[in-house]
């Protein structure tokens, strides 16, 4: 890990120094400064991540867990070192509880296809919230179609708060699994996962948290949360695409059948039968995304060195500023104003479709997301097909928000 151009942890973030670490932030869009407000879709990458990946390819790349030669040992050490970095980052008890996947989607599909198929039976209930991303809905529907499980959905109120009394009332004797997002990608709502997991453990219900929007913004301690599974993707936490993580408690993972078959995940193979490798390799068939994992490790080191508490404090301050400024834009309605929320500002502009808002802002160099955010059920719940969404990252500033507000003035200019 290269030294970071940031000050000691007690001090406020030196965002200018952080921004200097992200080469893309120096890019111009048709001569205008890039204002990147779409980190919830995918975050930009610091040079520390890019350098770490390039360094592996240039000095120590080979396949892992295979070669008798030194390069392979170096690559294996770096790859397994990244696993240890992830373990420490989410405070898992053991590194074997960290399974590398392609992304959070694959991590959730893995649980649905293995734990789900092995242990859930017709009539068993899986409880979700109305705020889930499609990646935490569709895998359970596939499982339902295969096994006859029942999917239940806990409601949200008009502000986007999860209604805990209704949530708890939906837990029955048949509830076998609760799968909830840590933070809503469309609204920014923080779900009380500690409370949910404690209740679930007392009732013997397995829990899965979709942490893709949690890990980039909050200190995450899976043992403290008390979940059985925690899934997240690397690219939203400043790592590369194509690498994600499934944390699973060892006793759960041990009990599950393998997900995919192939190399790496076996102990012995004959044409009659095979035996499987121990954790974590049992769930990592085939050559893994070696350099992606190492890049993710570098990203998590970067975030840790800056300090997650400081990042969270800075983003909370920016969110309050942004929500306040957007609330004053004529004709703008904020979507998602939960009491506990982070990093996401969804909104609609009277008489202007979010896509048109996005196109006008883009002409000003401002990148936001416009659409249903892969969360159509929550859009339906709020009576919308789409919103515009500005989301924050480690490099976001008040200047970005001011540019957004100015850009929204341009939207009004074009659409009258």
């Amino acid at each position, binding site marked *: 890990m290269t030294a970071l151009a940031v000050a000691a942890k007690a001090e406020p973030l030196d965002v200018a120094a952080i921004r200097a670490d992200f080469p893309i932030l120096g890019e111009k869009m048709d001569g205008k400064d890039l204002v990147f407000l779409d980190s919830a879709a995918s975050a930009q990458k610091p040079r520390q991540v890019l350098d770490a990946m390039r360094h592996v390819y240039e000095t120590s790349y080979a396949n892992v867990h295979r070669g008798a030669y030194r390069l392979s040992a170096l690559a294996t050490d770096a790859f397994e070192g990244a696993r240890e970095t992830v373990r420490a980052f989410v405070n898992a008890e053991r590194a074997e509880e960290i399974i590398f996947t392609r992304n959070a989607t694959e991590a959730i599909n893995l649980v649905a296809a293995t734990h789900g198929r092995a242990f859930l039976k017709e009539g068993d209930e899986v409880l979700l919230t109305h705020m889930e991303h499609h990646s935490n809905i569709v895998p359970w529907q596939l499982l339902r179609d295969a096994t006859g499980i029942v999917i239940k959905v806990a409601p949200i109120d008009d502000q986007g708060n999860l209604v805990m009394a209704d949530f708890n009332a939906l837990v029955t004797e048949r509830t076998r699994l609760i799968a909830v997002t840590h933070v809503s990608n469309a609204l920014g709502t923080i779900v009380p996962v500690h409370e949910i997991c404690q209740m679930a453990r007392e009732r013997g219900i397995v829990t899965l948290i979709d942490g893709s929007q949690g890990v980039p913004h909050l200190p995450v301690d899976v043992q403290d949360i008390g979940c059985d599974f925690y899934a997240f993707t690397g690219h939203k936490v400043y790592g590369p695409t194509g690498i994600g993580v499934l944390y699973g408690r060892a006793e759960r993972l041990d009990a599950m059948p393998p997900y995919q078959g192939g190399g790496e995940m076996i102990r012995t193979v004959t044409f009659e039968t095979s035996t499987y490798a121990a954790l974590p390799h049992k769930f990592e068939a085939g050559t893994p995304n070696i350099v992606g994992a190492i890049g993710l490790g570098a990203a998590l080191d970067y975030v840790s060195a800056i300090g997650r508490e400081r990042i969270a404090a800075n983003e909370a301050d920016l969110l309050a500023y942004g929500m306040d400024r957007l609330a004053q834009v004529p004709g703008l309605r904020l979507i998602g104003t939960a009491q506990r929320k982070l990093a996401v500002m969804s909104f609609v502009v009277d008489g202007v*479709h979010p896509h*048109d808002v996005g196109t006008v802002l883009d*002409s000003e160099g401002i990148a936001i997301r416009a*659409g249903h955010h892969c969360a159509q059920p929550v859009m339906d719940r709020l009576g919308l097909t789409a919103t515009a969404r500005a989301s924050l990252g480690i490099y976001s500033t008040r200047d970005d928000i001011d540019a957004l507000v100015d850009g929204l003035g341009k939207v009004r200019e*074009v659409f009258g």
Partner: protein
Amino acid sequence: MSDLRELYQEVILDHNRSPRNFGALDPCDHKADGHNPLCGDTVTVYLTIADGIVSDVAFDGRGCAISVASASMMTEMVKGMTVADAERLFQSFQHLCTEDTEPEVPAGLEDEMDVLQVLSGVRAFPMRVKCATLAWHTMSAALHGNRETSTE
């Protein structure tokens, strides 16, 4: 900003504010739903055909200014047109939105293609081409008896 003005010309903004032939057509004899899975926008196109001619047409749904204006202009144009001409116009319009070359203008549809030039601004915005063509794909699907289409 010049590309932006080119995209959001006054004609488009006007059709967006007050779309023509907007609402369900009941009864109708051809109908299809179009989806743009990128943004979740939907459009339904309704047609009544008599003797090979589009005798009535309407649309409803939710979409951006580009998709609403394009659908609105489409319904204005194809009303009273032969089904064959409506299909030819669709092909030329799609070419207009997606290709750098000028489309071949079918005989008798010169005026319509002139008017549709106003939507050619989407060529500078690749993310928006599907918005412009969604209603047209949906009309074509309806004419071919398909109930659903998508811009995927």
